[in-house]
């Protein structure tokens, strides 16, 4: 028997799975202390790299898990959806997202965690997120050209670079471990 064991093409099914994984994700963020805006902005002032370490650890666990489960025949990676890439709009979106995160001290996930734990700034960020969504929707027409620009399909790093998956996995692990070491040295020096 090979994973994924649950496949759904319905909105209700997707929302149910998203609800379960979202709650688990939020619980993990809360356990890591990422409901605090002070902790999040610490990475921008190079005083606290918890966010970097938690997120990169999550990436490593997911990447190594997916790779080895696929390699061992437990997970059929060919049946796991890869979201499409639109290069320029996603770079622009990432920059806007990063600026908002630096200003608010929270991202959408951690703002929900903050709000759930009773923090007013979390509620304010959630309100800001929804306001941004509504504003973007209302002013979407002039953004349409950017929105549709540079489609690349379900692009992956191995396909993009033309290198084996395993080499990319090793590269990401190396970057993460070096990053963790550097982050701890910076934290220790302060």
């Amino acid at each position, binding site marked *: 028997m*090979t994973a994924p064991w649950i496949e759904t*093409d*319905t909105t209700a099914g997707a929302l149910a799975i998203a609800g379960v994984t979202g709650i688990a994700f939020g619980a993990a963020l809360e356990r890591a202390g990422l409901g605090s805006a002070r902790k999040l902005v610490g990475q921008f002032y190079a005083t606290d790299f918890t966010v970097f370490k938690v997120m990169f650890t999550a990436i*490593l666990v997911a990447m*190594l898990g*997916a*790779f*080895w489960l*696929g*390699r061992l*025949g437990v*997970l*059929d*990676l*060919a*049946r796991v959806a*890869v979201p499409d890439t639109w290069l320029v709009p996603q770079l622009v979106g990432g920059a806007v997202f990063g600026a908002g995160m630096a200003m608010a001290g929270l991202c959408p996930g951690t703002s929900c965690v903050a709000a759930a734990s009773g923090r007013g700034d979390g509620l304010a960020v959630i309100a800001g997120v929804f306001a941004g969504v509504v504003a973007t929707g209302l002013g979407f027409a002039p953004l349409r050209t950017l929105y549709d620009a540079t489609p690349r*399909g*379900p692009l992956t790093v191995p*396909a993009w670079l*033309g290198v*084996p*998956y*395993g*080499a990319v*996995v*090793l590269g*990401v*692990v*190396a970057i*993460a*471990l070096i990053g*963790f070491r550097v982050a701890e040295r910076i934290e220790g020096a302060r």
Partner: protein
Amino acid sequence: MMSRTRRRWLAGAAALAGGLAALAGTPYRRAVARAPGAPRSPAGVIDITELARIVTDQEDHVSAIELADWLHAGRPRLRVIDLRTAPEFAAYHIPGAEHITLDRLAFTAFAADETVVLYSELGVHGAQAWVFLRALGLHRVFFLRNGLHEWLDDVMSPTIAADAPAEAKAGFARISELSRSFGGLPRVLGGDPAVVAPVPLARRRGC
């Protein structure tokens, strides 16, 4: 706070898993079959002469009855790919079919020893997908000649005239047995009205 020793163990485990990953080959359950020297990316190579010969010899497609025979016999390493949209697939698909849309086909892994049968609503997308997979180096790939329509007509609701020759009736008996094994309803036109019953059909539009 996690101890330094524990963190070092975890970092070592990650480094080991990452290092072995570089040597472990593809994480895909089935390696993508490629022609010798073909590029690694989904971009493929087409041998036009060879493809023209295969098409001329009609070795590029299977009929619905042939596919039903393969499925019924449990042909090993057979993969049936439904290229239609997700709602269409959810509404009805050939038993055992996988849903992979045309734009994701090039990113799907197929093994060289698998027999792949492609189909869509009609025959067009199946034939186009056949070219794509041939370009990617797969050899045991076919498309369902007239798509799902042919399956619905020939397998799920085959018909024969009540006054058909005995030889045709003998062939129809075998098809009828095959049809019933897939939940189909063979009909004798002009015969016993009791066996003439509507068959649930998928929507028929597009390709």
